[in-house]
């Protein structure tokens, strides 16, 4: 059976929270709980003066990668609504290929 995953290019995750709200709408998750959760590693300056500030959106155990939507030929809700277009859905192999191509600041998630 084909196994799917989410690929996140977190160099460009802007922290907009759209995935969280889109997921909650889709999976009818009550406020306060999450199927997609946005984490922030808050801004700080490295010793050389350069900056660090990352957001990472990741799927929790409530995520089923929108199996119903995917069966209808749609994208998972979080991927469709992602404003930065930094979230992608595909097979593990497709996601791994994106990861290898990106080479940095990217991750694959299996909820």
């Amino acid at each position: 059976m084909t196994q799917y995953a989410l690929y996140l290019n977190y160099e460009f995750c802007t922290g907009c929270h759209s995935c969280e709200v889109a997921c909650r709408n889709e999976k009818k998750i009550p406020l306060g709980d999450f199927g997609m959760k946005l984490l922030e590693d808050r801004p700080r300056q490295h010793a050389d003066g350069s900056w660090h500030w990352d957001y990472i959106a990741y799927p929790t155990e409530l995520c089923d990668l929108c199996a119903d939507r995917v069966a209808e030929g749609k994208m998972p809700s979080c991927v469709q609504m992602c404003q930065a277009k930094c979230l992608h859905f595909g097979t593990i192999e497709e996601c791994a290929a994106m990861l290898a191509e990106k080479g940095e600041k990217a991750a694959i998630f299996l909820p």
Partner: protein
Amino acid sequence: MAEAVTQVGNETIWRTCAWSPPGCHPVGCGLLVHVEDGKVTKVEGDPEHPITRGALCTRCLALPEYMYHPDRVIHPMKRAKEDRGLDKWEQCSWDEAIDIIVTNAKEISEKYGHETIAVFGGTGREGNDYYSTYANCIFGTPNAVYAQPGWSCYGPRASITAFMMGGGYPEIDYAQKCAQRYDDPRFVAPGVIVLWGKEPLRSNPDGLFGHSIVEMMQRFGTKLIMVDPRMTWIGTRSEYVLQLRPGTDTAMAMAWINVIAEEDLYDHEFVEKWTYGFDEMVAACKEMTPEKAAEICGVDAEEIRGAARLYATTHPSSLCWGLAVDQSPNGVQLGQCLLALMSITGDLDAPGGTTLGAGDVHAANAARDDSVGSAADDRDASDYADRLEESESYPNQMEIAITYAYQYGLMTEERYAKKIGVDKYPAIGAIMWTVAPDEFLKALETEVPYKMHMAMFQSSNPVGSAIAGEPQRWRNALRKLDFCFATDLFMNPTIMACADVFLPLCTTVEHDAVVVPHYSMNISFFGAERRCVQVGECKSEMEIMLLLGKRLFPQYWGQFEDEIAYLKSKSGALDWDDLKEKVCYTNVENYYKYKTGELRPDHQPGFPTQTGRVELYSYAYQAFGESPVPYYEEPAYGPIATPELMKDYPFVLTTGARKQEFFHSEHKQVPSLRAITPWPEMDINPADAAELGIEEGDWVEMASPYGKCRQRARVTPTIKKGVVHAMHGWSYPEESGEEPSLFGNWRSNVNCLLPNSVNGKLGFGDTFKCMICSCKKVDGPGEHPSPSEAEVYVEPSRQKPAEVVGQIWRPADAPEYN
């Protein structure tokens, strides 16, 4: 392409484009609205929308929570005048509500004159298209009011562009006017984009879909340069971040021009053929070396050089200007420099450069000779643009209003000349259809040149925490009026304090309308907003205009059977019936329109200015009493201008950075959105916080000579030492709406710290992004101070003593204006 409306089992799915309400500017994001049993169950992004392609921000994702919120007002309401400030509203019928308004408007017009009625509009909601229509074409008053000191939002940028280029609005190129978007063979991605005083991911853009910049960074490796007092997330992904002292942007921009001229990095051919006064502008910037700007702005001189070089030597490069241009008294000069920077690279209206709009001739005509409706426009033929007849482009909605008011006799030239404040600040009246706001507040208070008697509030909340400076003054002045009414969706501080009738409005998915990015000044597409459901007895602004118009000015409004007839009449040649089926038309335009004659009504090459060129040396500025070339002026409050005051108010204060989950004073009652940002936050540097004993999450009281407020500390190195940033737009809908609380309006309202009348010479700009304040740790949110406690009137600069109201203190008078 999916149908506009599809049926899936019990569910109807509508494709539509968003505008407002709830608050948003005309970005026109694509929605899929799921409806079951007449109720919206879910909103998604529309993957087929050419610009947003499925993306959607949290405000529209949470739309059902907003639409069906228990506090939403869904029936008309009335309240006795003596109960203003008390929650003694009574539901009434539309007939009764309209009767009350019509009776009062007629009485007041007959007794005191139409001009004693004011119509307030706010920022960029769809209602923006209508408030001058209500004013000019229903109530017959010239006094449409945008209540922000110095008209400090978009209007200055639009005016500056009209003065220097003849009209329109410049926007970065993100293939928004290419039929195949990024894949279009004509499109080249910007190599570098400058974000000047603009955070496009969080801002409430007027037509720019901000995340397209992140798309271009990923697809094309587009690089960024930020000029901003704050380090932002997108700043951490930029090549340069020039973190300048708030309010010193003009010095920085002049230094860029200095570097680009000095090092010969400009496009000689463009400068020679298409600009006027380059040498004079360069001469004006000669003294502003990077070293001098470094001293003023607090940014390393080599960083300034490096950023200017990167911008000027990368082609194509694009420049995105933001609210910082509008919100400083020196902003008119900043805008002049930034338009110069967009031009002298040669990348103006080039693929990947800074685009111009072919609809620009409208504003140009208005700015030049008040001729209305004569604009001709033969844009590039495309599948859709063919539908727009050659002689008629998409009409400017505000021009329509005044034209008909004259034509049908509701407005006279004599009465229009009574528009308040534009005699003092004629530049504000040049292309903006409103009063000069700071002058209007004084007129309300002093009853000079005449006493006002009635107000309508439409998409505006001037007693609240977003638009006004010193909202305590607006509250007191507006309470004096004989009659006030409002159209809105939720009760707010202004309506609770001042209004007598409340008319409930529709959201964007409850009415039919057209959304046009940049208010038709730089059109990337035309989108249909659709009536997917009805909520309560809510009506759209267009429906309400018809109800009132047919009673008050039937000579004009009588011709429209319903709001769709009106919508069609005001859409020019745009075919509504076709648009609503297709949902969205891309407005395909040529590049280099100044070469093809598409910018000028006479179809000659060039810009629609007096010289036919981009006027870097501005005759329009000169005609309005401003210097024709840029100069730097220190912020009215700050370490240089008011060193004595800095002892009591040691921080430079900048305000109003956006959160995408809120639109100004709206949205705080929407659970999913409030959960993202539950409290108002002020940013303070860790070193300053440590000195003051402030820790993350502590309540901090900020005060200026004008007032005070409390917000919670976000201790962060992203703001420099000595500077703080405070959020705008906060009140607490969960608290009592009655006076004196007004939904906790005075607790966290940073606008209470911000004065009126600190304007530039043209009347534009104020201190929203360049004020001073003190900070101290406090135990908690505290009780809400009453507005009378915060009532401190101060008139800082450029005001003659005779014009000053309740003045107790004048810190920053510049001798040349006395």
